[in-house]
């Protein structure tokens, strides 16, 4: 049996930036879940052994796209996230490339033991889509707003974790984890969020991308917070603070080289994620910094509380998941530079 050619980029040293200076503009709004749905269809078209398990919310996490096009390779798994994960493992151990998607609240927490033992310890080629991530789900409230699964999934050995920043990247990331061999988790959202990357915007599994140059502070963000970071950077520029914006779409394995370069060249870091500030993207970066190059850092995220009902925008504002908070954090951390 052959091995696929695609593997994750090693963490080789890189130039501090990739030379690209994409100018981002708002291209519209579309939820990342649609990118996931479309990416699955692309995979389905390319590979006959890609299969999808439904978790009784196929129309919400957009596995319905795949179901419509490839009904023979779609399997409804009812409401049993733990077992869907195990069935996916069995499929993977039989040479299939199974995706299972549900709300991240249930696709990462209801099946944690299964992810740990059956998927990761087996190193089984299982792909999990964790939808409706973060508080931007809105009125469904705290039970459905998962803010802990970056911590959970990145702690598991053998796991790859991707959090795409917009619709277009979500599509690329979905195809990428499908073509990559090994356990992978992709996090996406329900609400329409800014679309700003294009087909030719660089994306590579395992690589953080510098989306904006700057040497005063590096804002390292994932998911919809990347757009907020870009907005914040423009505001900061007006006040003379030149912020680098890094899209950390792969959280595990972390692109150490790009992040260490940012620490060295900017001397201050802000993390921004729609997740607890505990043990998430910010935590991953903090671990790297103190090990390699300790600089001051501020964390934008949810501060160790549960969410609640409300409109997505209201909630994002209330929990401080906006460019406003990023700006404050950036100013604060710049002041802390010694």
């Amino acid at each position, binding site marked *: 049996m052959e091995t696929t050619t695609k593997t994750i980029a090693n963490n080789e040293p890189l130039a501090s930036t990739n030379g690209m200076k994409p100018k981002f503009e708002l291209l519209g709004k579309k939820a990342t879940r649609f990118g996931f749905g479309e990416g699955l269809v692309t995979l389905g078209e390319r590979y006959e052994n890609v299969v999808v398990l439904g978790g*009784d919310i*196929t*129309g919400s996490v957009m596995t319905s796209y795949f179901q419509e096009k490839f009904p023979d390779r779609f399997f*409804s798994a*009812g409401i049993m996230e733990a077992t869907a994960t195990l069935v996916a493992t069995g499929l993977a151990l039989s040479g299939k490339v199974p995706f299972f998607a549900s709300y991240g609240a249930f696709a990462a927490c209801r099946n944690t033991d299964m992810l740990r033992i059956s998927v990761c310890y087996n190193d089984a080629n299982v792909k999990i889509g964790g939808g409706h991530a973060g508080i931007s789900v809105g009125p469904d409230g*705290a*039970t459905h707003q998962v803010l802990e699964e970056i911590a959970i999934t990145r702690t598991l050995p053998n796991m790859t974790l991707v959090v795409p920043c917009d619709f277009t990247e979500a599509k690329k990331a979905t195809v990428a984890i499908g073509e990559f061999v090994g356990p992978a988790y992709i996090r996406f959202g329900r609400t329409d969020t800014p679309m700003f990357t294009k087909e030719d915007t660089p994306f590579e599994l395992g690589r953080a991308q510098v989306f904006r140059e700057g040497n005063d502070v590096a804002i390292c963000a994932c998911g919809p917070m990347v757009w907020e970071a870009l907005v914040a950077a423009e505001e900061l520029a007006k006040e003379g603070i030149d912020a680098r914006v890094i899209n950390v779409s792969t959280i595990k394995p972390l692109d150490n080289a790009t992040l260490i370069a940012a620490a060295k060249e900017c001397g201050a870091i802000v993390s921004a994620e729609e997740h607890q500030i505990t043990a998430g993207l910010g935590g991953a970066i903090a671990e790297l910094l103190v090990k390699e190059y300790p600089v001051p850092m501020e964390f934008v995220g949810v501060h160790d509380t549960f969410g609640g*009902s409300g409109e997505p925008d209201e909630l994002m504002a209330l929990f401080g998941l906006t460019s406003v908070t990023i700006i404050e954090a950036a100013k604060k951390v710049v002041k802390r530079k010694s």
Partner: protein
Amino acid sequence: MAELKFHIYPIESGFHGPKRPTPSPDLIAKYNYANFKPFKNSKQNSDEYIATAAKEIRRDIIRSLVEAKSGHSGGPLGISDVMATLYFGGVMRYDPKQPWMESRDRFVLSAGHMAPVLYATLANAGFMEKKELLTLRKLNSRLQGHPGRDMGLPGIETSTGSLGQGMGIAVGMALADKYVSKNDHRVYCITGDGELQEGEIWEAAMFASHWKLDNLCVLVDRNHCQIDGRNPDVMEVDPVADKWKAFGFHTIHINGHSIPEIRAAYAEANSVKEKPTCIVAETYMGHPISFMNDDYRWHGKPPNKEQAEKALAELE
């Protein structure tokens, strides 16, 4: 030996801004919510009285959902007759003036997405002012999209929303009551039929029968529907009653829209000893709204304005 005393109810540790949302006076007037008198709970209440309450619960579900602009219509409407019977047919013991009194029976809505029917029932029983229903799913409302104990709403015993969890909590409450507190409270739990696909239901069922929790009564909302379609198209759950029987439950199969049958089933459950009871209640999702009845596509949608008016007209 001492008891380690601690504060259980009400809690208000939930996320919240400076104040609760308040519905507009116009809206309160529109639904005539200012002059509302709660229904009474009594075994003496007639079936008609309960049916009236059920109708009012359904109206309130429609009203709260149309104002929320998101939320679940189908399940809540379908289970309204059961809820009305539980709360107004003298089945459950509770006192809206002392919502946390020790001697109350407990209610756990394991199918947390059916929250609108729980809120509507609690409002009609006098646990809160009815106008609060119009804050459903709004920022900082006590009426969270799925029941959130953190908001401190009287009558909400536990947060639910992750399917399959409420049932285990109900079992724990029944265990506490029967073996530790040694009271005679009863614990009522409602699950969906799609929810039966979660293995925790069967774990909890096995636990309950092992511990002979005759103070536990589970009711399955057997509407044959879930989000993606009808159960057999998504994941077959039949034979439902056989499963519960094999897991050690006394099992009763009823029409979940017949108030006399619901009453009789709860009475029967009350008399069973050494076994928990499961009532499998055949219902229609969205019942009895003409354009919703038995249609799974109404699982998680609210009515729009027009649809709400039509539904309210049908519920006159």
